[in-house]
């Protein structure tokens, strides 16, 4: 089918513009003056409405009132209101007075509102009376906040009087204040309103918009809304949400239409009933609302014949939903995507057929490109790129509030980096791939969760689906889906859904795991918290499996030998920064051994908790008299592994294996190689048995047996160490260098740690806590190495898509093995950070 050309549009930004004036007073003296601007359907307070003329007068009164409070230009006014007529009055009124309006969600807790009030340094807050009692304790002692304006009461005396803060009743203000317009004649680039992102991580951050954003959304009015004269818009959202602020408040009122909004309890039937009641022509809702209407009601277009245009935003709308809607309501749902920084700028429109799954087109008039964030070059057709917006686009926000660095970081070379990834097909449709964080990286493939969700949602038994990457270990992230069934799903259903997905998706994209859930963790605006969901599912996952997988990257940078005959040493080792503590029954005097066993048992009886440290018992040599007593002790202890010293052959490993089998089959086996024979047999040692996990190089003892003086020439032992490392690596074992012998010589201990690190060991043992810091540090990947590894992996993955297996990265040739190493660096870094030991 030949696609029709888009009409072009150029946004003209006037020198002076005030959103408050443009959406209210501008209509005075026109035929729209007496039209209804807004109708609020409140489930408790019934219906209320306001004409443009009334809205203009009321907002002027509010503006004059703010001025009387000494709220000056650019001061912040927090608006924490439910959907009500007070909302447009205070929102537009604040901007008319030149203040910056700060809409916040009514769902926020007291401490969250306090955070926003402090961060924005608001001088005044407008809030609904129902919230007053809850919020007051949080607002009372803020230095900046001087005034509280309460909506829903006639007189400020009706409520509890706070200290050091003035309170007013909004209704009283709107009745008594002067209505003479004294609008602030703002330049279009001046700040107008400040919205806070929902903040899925950390604290919410403020996004400051200017008055010009009003005309910056003209392309949306043109291409997403498809406005016709005297439209009546039913909006299901809350005004405080960025996209609702635009699509329910500013854009329709700027053009003189009528908006119908709802407050209070609702169900799936409410929306269609309201559309019918108010003869609405346009309906705007989030996908969940559409799903509810389709799944829980039998309504068709006959129940709301006035409806002619439907719109959705907020999250991705499944194509199944669009098809069902088309069948029952005989029209499309036009989807748009946007963000707090740049309201809905990509959308479907009547100019081009909806291509299910695609986000639509960049609205003409906007300067949006898909760029490769590294090279800043535009990507080609069907290539993944970051959505970037020209910083001169009038729809774009001004800055992150008081976050200079964040603002600067998001801008590169004249572009704002949205952080969203997408690709463009040959006809210009944009296919949203998700946030950078959402994209699943599985076996070197980058998979968009939306693509998988789109397919899985078309299964007849699936009501909703979220696709996730489950990281089993550093090399293994697999695609999983968390599904809400239309009815309860049994195992058979789950298998069927997986098979269905596998049949309809490329092999690497198809989910390998399925979880049935009843709900998803969501932000207050209803966005699914994917990371949180992964956490929850991992918890549910077979715990044993998780522990085993985690173990592959168990921290073993430093292993501290603890002489257990002294209770204080054992006690102290609970608090030290060692990744492992080895209770050494072998390297102590014979007469100390029995005492040591008693002490260990006593300490473990008190508590077997040694923090994150791995607990290892070093038992006496195979064949020695003491071994049996050590074994008996090990049976009573909650430990992780047993270290056998002086392993010389594969036969020794087999015997050690048997011993562990008898003690506790879950324990791991660690072997110390410290004799020339052990070095000669190291290959067969590493290959033997099933439990051997760690090889420890007993370099001191080995040096003595080889008659090497380590003090005079520390390099003389290198050759033998290298052989052990080679064999250990060949059989996938962890290899640890033995402790440095001279506690007082810090320099040589540091040098020997470096030697072990550069030889490729995973860690080093220590005999004194003083040695731990340097040892931990050298085996911890450095931050810049991690950043480099991440960049390298990204570059490699991009190249892989074009079929290359080897790439050049910063003068280095990179292949799969190097990437595996890079992934290991990242995983280890994250793991060590989790442990939270003192690092630079």
């Amino acid at each position, binding site marked *: 089918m030949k696609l029709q050309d888009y009409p072009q549009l150029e946004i003209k930004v006037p020198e002076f513009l005030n959103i408050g004036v443009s959406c209210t007073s501008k209509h005075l003296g026109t035929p729209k003056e007496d039209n209804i601007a807004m109708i609020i359907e409140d489930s408790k307070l019934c219906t209320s409405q306001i004409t443009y003329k009334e809205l203009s007068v009321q907002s002027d009164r509010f503006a004059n009132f703010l001025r009387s409070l000494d709220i000056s230009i650019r001061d912040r006014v927090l608006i924490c209101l439910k959907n009500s007529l007070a909302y447009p009055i205070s929102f537009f009124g604040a901007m008319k007075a030149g203040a910056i309006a700060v809409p916040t969600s009514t769902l926020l807790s007291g401490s969250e509102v306090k955070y926003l009030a402090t961060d924005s340094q608001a001088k005044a807050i407008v809030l609904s009376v129902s919230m007053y009692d809850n919020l007051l304790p949080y607002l009372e002692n803020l230095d900046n906040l001087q005034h509280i304006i309460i909506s829903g009461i006639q007189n400020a005396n009706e409520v509890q009087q706070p200290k050091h803060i003035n309170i007013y009743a909004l209704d009283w203000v709107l009745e008594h204040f002067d209505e003479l317009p004294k609008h602030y004649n703002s330049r279009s680039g001046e700040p107008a309103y400040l919205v806070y992102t929902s903040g899925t991580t950390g604290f919410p951050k403020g996004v400051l918009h200017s008055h010009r954003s009003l005309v910056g959304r003209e392309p949306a009015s043109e291409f997403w809304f498809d406005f016709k004269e005297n439209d009546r818009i039913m909006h299901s959202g809350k005004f405080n949400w960025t996209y609702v602020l635009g699509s329910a408040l500013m854009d329709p009122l700027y053009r003189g239409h009528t908006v119908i909004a709802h407050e209070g309890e609702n169900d799936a039937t409410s929306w269609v009933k309201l559309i019918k009641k108010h003869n609405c022509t346009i309906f705007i809702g989030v996908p969940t609302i559409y799903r509810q209407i389709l799944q829980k009601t039998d309504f068709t277009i006959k129940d709301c014949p006035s409806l002619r245009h439907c719109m959705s935003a907020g999250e991705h709308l499944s194509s199944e939903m669009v098809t069902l809607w088309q069948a029952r309501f005989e029209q499309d749902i036009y989807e748009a995507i946007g963000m707090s920084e740049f309201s809905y700028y990509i959308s479907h429109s009547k100019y081009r057929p909806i291509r299910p799954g695609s986000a639509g087109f960049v609205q003409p008039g906007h300067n949006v490109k898909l760029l490769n964030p590294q090279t800043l070059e535009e990507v080609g057709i069907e290539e993944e790129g970051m959505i970037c917006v020209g910083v001169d686009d009038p729809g774009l926000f001004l800055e992150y509030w008081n976050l200079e660095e964040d603002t600067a970081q998001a801008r590169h070379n004249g572009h704002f980096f949205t952080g969203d990834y997408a690709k463009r097909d040959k006809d210009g449709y944009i296919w949203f791939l998700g946030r950078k964080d959402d994209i699943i990286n599985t076996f070197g493939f980058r998979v968009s969760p939306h693509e998988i969700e789109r397919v899985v949602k078309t299964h007849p038994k699936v009501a909703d689906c979220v696709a996730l990457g489950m990281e089993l270990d550093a090399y293994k992230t697999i695609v999983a889906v968390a599904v809400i069934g239309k009815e309860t799903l049994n195992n058979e259903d789950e298998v069927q859904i997986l098979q269905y997905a596998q049949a309809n998706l490329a092999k690497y994209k198809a989910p390998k795991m399925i979880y049935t859930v009843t709900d998803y963790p969501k932000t207050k605006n209803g966005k699914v918290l994917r990371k949180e969901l992964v956490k929850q599912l991992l918890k549910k996952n077979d715990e044993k499996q998780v522990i085993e997988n985690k173990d592959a990257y168990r921290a073993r940078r430093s292993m501290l030998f603890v002489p257990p005959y002294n209770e204080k040493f054992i006690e102290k080792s609970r608090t030290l920064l060692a990744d492992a503590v080895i209770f050494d029954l072998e390297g102590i005097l014979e007469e100390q051994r029995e005492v040591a066993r008693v002490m260990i048992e006593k300490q473990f009886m008190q508590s077997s908790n040694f923090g994150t440290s791995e607990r290892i018992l070093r038992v006496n040599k195979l064949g020695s008299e003491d071994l049996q007593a050590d074994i008996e002790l090990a049976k009573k202890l909650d430990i992780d592994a047993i270290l056998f010293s002086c392993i010389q052959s594969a036969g020794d490993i087999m015997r050690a294996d048997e011993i562990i089998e008898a003690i506790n089959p879950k324990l791991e086996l660690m072997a110390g190689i410290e004799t020339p024979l052990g070095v000669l047999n190291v290959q067969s040692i590493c290959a033997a048995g099933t439990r051997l996990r760690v090889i420890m190089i007993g370099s001191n003892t080995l040096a003595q047996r080889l008659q090497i003086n380590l003090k005079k020439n520390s390099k003389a032992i290198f050759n033998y160490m290298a052989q052990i490392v080679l064999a250990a690596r060949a059989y996938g074992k962890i290899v640890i260098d033995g402790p440095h012998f001279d506690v007082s010589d810090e320099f040589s201990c*540091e040098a020997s740690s470096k030697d072990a690190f550069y030889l490729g060991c995973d860690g080093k043992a220590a005999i004194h806590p003083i040695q731990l*810091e*340097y040892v931990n540090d050298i085996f911890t990947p*450095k931050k810049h190495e991690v950043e480099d590894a991440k960049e390298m992996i990204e570059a490699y993955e991009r190249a892989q898509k074009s079929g290359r297996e080897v790439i050049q990265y910063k003068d280095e040739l990179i292949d799969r093995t190097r990437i595996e190493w890079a992934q290991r660096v990242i995983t280890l870094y994250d793991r060590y950070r989790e442990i939270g030991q*003192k690092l*630079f």
Partner: protein
Amino acid sequence: MPYSQKRKVKIMSAYFTDFSSLSHDDDLRIKLGGYWPGIQIYYPPIKYNPLDGTYETQEQAKFRLQKHAYKTGAHTLLFDLEDGCRMKEMSRKLLIEELPKFPPRDFQIAVRINPFRTDEYDADLAMLKQIHKYIDVIVLSKAGEVYGDAEIRDLSSWLVSIGSNLTIQPIIEHPRSLQIADRLMSHSTVKHVVFGIHDFSKALAYKITPEGWIDELQTFFNMLTMEARIKGCGVIGGVEVLLTPNSLPDSCLEKKDIRRWLDLHGDDASRHVYAHAKRETAMGLTGKQVITPNHINICKVAFTPSPSEVQQNINILKAAIEADALLSGAIRFEGEMLDPPMFGKSLQNILRAYALKSLQKEDQDFAMHVLSKMPIHTIKENWPYGKL
């Protein structure tokens, strides 16, 4: 009391200073010559933004000042009105408005003013007249190059005329100034001089390198430090131009930590800067100027005795006092034979920590205890800075 005993007491009290009666820090400051300039960070009042070729506005400069200058980790915050400052008028305005608003601080404030008897110099003095109360030190660039030590004399008497007790740190940045260094240092307002290595080497037509300048200028360093020692003044070392991408973490105080950081995390530039600062410390310098905040910590730790060093020195002195060998005799200490010159060095180290504001209160008391046991000339041999 027999006459002979009376006389002995009298002689003793002239001979020794009674430090034990001192309880207030201020007194000790005068006796010991006050806190040292330490690490002086050059702070441009109005900053240039090379990206878009503009200067900060007054408002932006004020905001930056409050954000960064208020909590500097340096010993001295040095506002530059000379070479590094193009917007001089605006900078002065900023200082006049903002310095009085500074919150209580634990560092000195210095202002580098323009060369003597220039128009900008006069404007700088006009500014100082208004805000000298909020400043500790004037750093005078190109000191003595045109009018000799009369420059210091004039500036000193002007300071007296406005009732100010500011001190002057002349910058020796020309061979001519080095030649008259002893005269520059003979004024009571001068307690430390700055060795301006870059201008100095330029005037000398020496080519110095960022890595090797200490060796290349060693001779002149020696000349200056010797004059300064005779006059009881301190010398402030040279500015490093090597930019270090990393900053030494605040937690690094002990040698072992610094070595670990430099070894595993630091960059070559940091290693050079640290090595230079150690050399300057070894030469007994009392401070060092830096031009980037990343240099502050690395130079600070090089200049300041670490807590364990201080403890070690205290242990030595305690052992000396215990053996009654502080003034004569010798002791064995951890495998070394130590005598009074070595005790003097230990005392110097402790006082050095004091002068760089890193001595704990109880250790200060101990230092006073040791000083009270020493005759004045011995103190002066060890510590030439104060007024005894």
